[in-house]
């Protein structure tokens, strides 16, 4: 862990852009509240991504610019536009879909991710509470879990750690971590650096990562 000034990494928008690239064409995706909701704005129509909102929508295209309809919102309370072929359902059916493994990928925000892929993203000890929403169900149910977050906290503490100190969302659930500094895969052998942000060297990433990080010989820069 370093005490130097945290490096400047990608903006929230660019993290979202990079996360969007991680989605398979034709997949069904749930976006968590906060940074992940920005991802909807970065998928191409040709990618044929179908977004699910856990409050009961399958098939919204992104945040709506038109009039606010209180009954047509995503899980973050934002108005959304529908795609042709969208459908509505109640919360029971929505979480049957999520927990039952029918969502190809979820992108969630994170507070901490551990070396074995544990996620902590719902409870902030400093605030003495939290909001769990659908995060625990998404973490156990989505076939692929992508965490999109800042690499370090505002005061420069790593969020990628050997063992999470914050209360967990789920154990061994994270597949990929996308931060302002890097793309990191979580596997049986731990964390592997897959890509680094433009201008950020692998050793810089390792320096700001609080857990052992496998660094291949070649670590390409993200193409954004």
């Amino acid at each position, binding site marked *: 862990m370093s005490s130097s000034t945290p490096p400047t990494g990608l903006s929230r928008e660019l993290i979202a852009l990079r996360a969007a690239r991680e989605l398979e064409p034709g997949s069904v995706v749930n976006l968590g509240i906060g940074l992940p909701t920005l991802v909807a704005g970065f998928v191409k129509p040709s990618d044929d991504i179908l977004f699910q*909102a*856990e*409050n*009961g*929508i399958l098939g919204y295209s992104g945040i709506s610019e038109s009039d*606010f*309809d*209180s*009954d*047509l*919102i995503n*899980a*973050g*309370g934002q108005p959304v536009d529908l795609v042709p072929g969208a459908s*509505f*359902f*109640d*919360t*029971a059916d929505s*979480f049957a879909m*999520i*927990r039952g493994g029918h969502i190809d990928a979820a992108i969630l925000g994170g*507070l901490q991710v551990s070396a074995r892929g*544990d996620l902590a993203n*719902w*409870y*902030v000890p400093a*605030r*003495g*509470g*939290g*909001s*769990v*929403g*659908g*995060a*625990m*169900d998404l973490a*156990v*149910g989505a076939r692929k879990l992508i965490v999109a977050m800042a690499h370090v906290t505002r005061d420069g503490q790593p969020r990628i750690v050997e063992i999470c100190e914050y*209360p*967990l*969302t*789920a*154990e061994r659930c994270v597949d990929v971590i996308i931060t302002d500094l890097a793309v990191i895969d979580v596997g049986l052998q731990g964390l592997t650096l897959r890509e680094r942000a433009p201008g950020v060297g692998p050793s810089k990433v390792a320096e700001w990562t609080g857990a052992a990080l496998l660094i291949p010989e070649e670590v390409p820069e993200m193409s954004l």
Partner: protein
Amino acid sequence: MIAQIFDTSDAAVADVADGATVLVGGFVSAGTPSNLILALKRGGQTDLTAVANNIGLGDLLDELCEDRQLAKVIATFAIRASGTRSSRFEVLYRAGEVELELVPQGTLIERLRAGGAGLGGVLTRTGLGTMMAEGKQIIELDGERWLLERPLRGDVALLKAWRGDLHGNLQYRLAGPNFNPVMATAADLVIAEVEELVEPGEIPPELVGTPAIYVDRLVRCEPIPVRWEG
């Protein structure tokens, strides 16, 4: 079987008892029975347990904290991870004046469904290895571990639908169903506010989201717009 039609939301909730457990439908702005919530505020009932997806996300449920009407909240969203302004609920919670039981959203709806569907519980992976598993029974089957989640019911359910017919059938619009259809099954007294009251038969049978037998009371209200600005 025939729903009772009330003229005002105040009259519809007047006999909700102090200490009641109240299921509140809705998800932030969608399908939220804001008129009934405000009627409960005016009614002044105290020591209530509210079961809802969210409190303090622009919803009017937070208003029940003004006069400390809530003893306990069972919810999925209650304390914001960040935010400059605290909800009334958060202030009371930090002062130790209201109890909070956070439940994962998929578990909350399954517990309510079990409560309405005569099931003794369900086994889920959600919450395993987390604080949510504390004090709960873990059942191992064929080498897999499952958390046993028990049913949840209310004395009263407050629902919001788009249209209701005079028998009590409810029709939701867009993402308006969310918690409402399941909560309709899981309370002893079910009260719904609707934007329009119609004759039986006007809601096509395929579009009935909550069948009439679940609904005890209906009241037509102008919807109160709420919006969460994050």
